[in-house]
């Protein structure tokens, strides 16, 4: 209870500071106040474009995120089983990890256009995270427990359920927070650069063009809430499916 009160007081402090700063600057087109942002958010809630933008960005980002998980899983399994494969794809992963997201966005724009940009970008940004987390989990499987599985003739299903899953889950948990926020951040960045139609990125881009900071803050706020909720759902899912770790 005390912890909750503390958190609420901290949030209230920052909101008051925001309000004061906005009134001191007194240029709502550059720095909208909290109340202006809230008003803008409520007015946006009743527009069709708001919901379409949210829906499109969220669906595309989640699609890229889940595809990255599936590909990360299979690539990690191949790398675990075939060391040549691991060495073979290492340079690609190194490039994906090192090249600035903006460069990747421009390359994707050049090659594939802006229609599915946020799917590609969230996939490319999150894929290495999942790949390395799952590979680390596989490489850290308890060898003694694997011998137990061998002696007691565990089926493939049992090995996955009781050995590999338990080994992978802690590594996945560690990387999931970063992966969730990266997916949404990079998706929206891509949408802004690519000016993708009917997306949060496009709305933020228009906020810049029309000097509408209240709209910019509103969309950013909604994005934070979505990314946070998505992360919580994924963590719950991992806790439920990840077994007793």
């Amino acid at each position: 209870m005390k912890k909750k009160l503390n958190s609420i007081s901290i949030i209230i402090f920052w909101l008051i500071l925001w309000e004061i700063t906005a009134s001191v600057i007194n240029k709502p087109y550059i720095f909208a106040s909290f109340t202006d942002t809230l008003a803008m958010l409520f007015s946006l809630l009743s527009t069709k474009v708001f919901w379409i933008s949210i829906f499109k960005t969220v669906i595309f980002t989640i699609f890229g995120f889940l595809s990255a998980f599936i590909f990360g899983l299979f690539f990690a399994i191949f790398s675990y089983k075939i060391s040549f494969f691991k060495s073979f794809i290492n340079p690609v992963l190194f490039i994906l990890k090192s090249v600035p997201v903006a460069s990747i966005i421009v390359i994707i724009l050049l090659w594939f256009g802006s229609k599915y940009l946020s799917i590609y970008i969230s996939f490319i940004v999150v894929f290495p995270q999942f790949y390395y987390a799952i590979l680390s989990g596989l490489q850290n499987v308890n060898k003694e427990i694997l011998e137990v599985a061998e002696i007691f003739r565990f089926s493939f299903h049992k090995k996955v359920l009781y050995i590999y899953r338990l080994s992978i889950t802690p590594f996945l948990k560690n990387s999931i927070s970063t992966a969730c926020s990266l997916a949404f951040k990079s998706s929206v960045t891509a949408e802004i650069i690519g000016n993708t139609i009917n997306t949060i990125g496009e709305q933020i881009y228009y906020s810049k063009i029309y000097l509408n900071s209240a709209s910019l803050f509103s969309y950013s706020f909604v994005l934070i809430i979505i990314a946070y909720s998505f992360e919580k759902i994924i963590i719950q899912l991992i806790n439920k499916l990840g077994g007793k770790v």
Partner: protein
Amino acid sequence: MIKLLNITKSFNDESVLSDFSYHFYPDHKYLIFGESGIGKTTLLNIIMGLQKADKGSVLSNCNFSCSFQQTRLFEKYSVLENLKIINNKENLEEIIVQLLGKEFIDKPVFSLSGGQKQKVSIIRAIIANSDCVILDEPFNNLDEKNILQCLEFIMNNLKGRTLIISSHITEQLKKYDFITIKL
């Protein structure tokens, strides 16, 4: 039947097994005994195929089940879950009550003492579908009363399988007709 033919194994140039041959027959009980570090676990691992001999061969058509010295249980899972992973058909709760007590059925394995874990490990080896049960130092951390209780459980549930026990404790085993192998 398990045939060990001229098994030789050494670690860092130190010979553990040298030209060792032996035949294990079905429905027989074997006790491998000897001082600590003499190579009992190595021999059992070679029999089960977990370690390779430097020389010699193992001929076997057996399915094994085993109680390892370090128990190797699924620590976060309960006693019952650990056993269910191996065999879901047996009357597991009854067995747990008989050897450990009712309160242990749903207890996670990490919360058990060394002796209690050892008992779970023995139960796991016995309830598994196998032709040969191998118990590596199964009586570590157990007092005499518990050793006798475990032995009775093992003998009552062996059902014609080959039993190979490695142990430095031999006194309590005397009343059973073990074929002894000294290393």
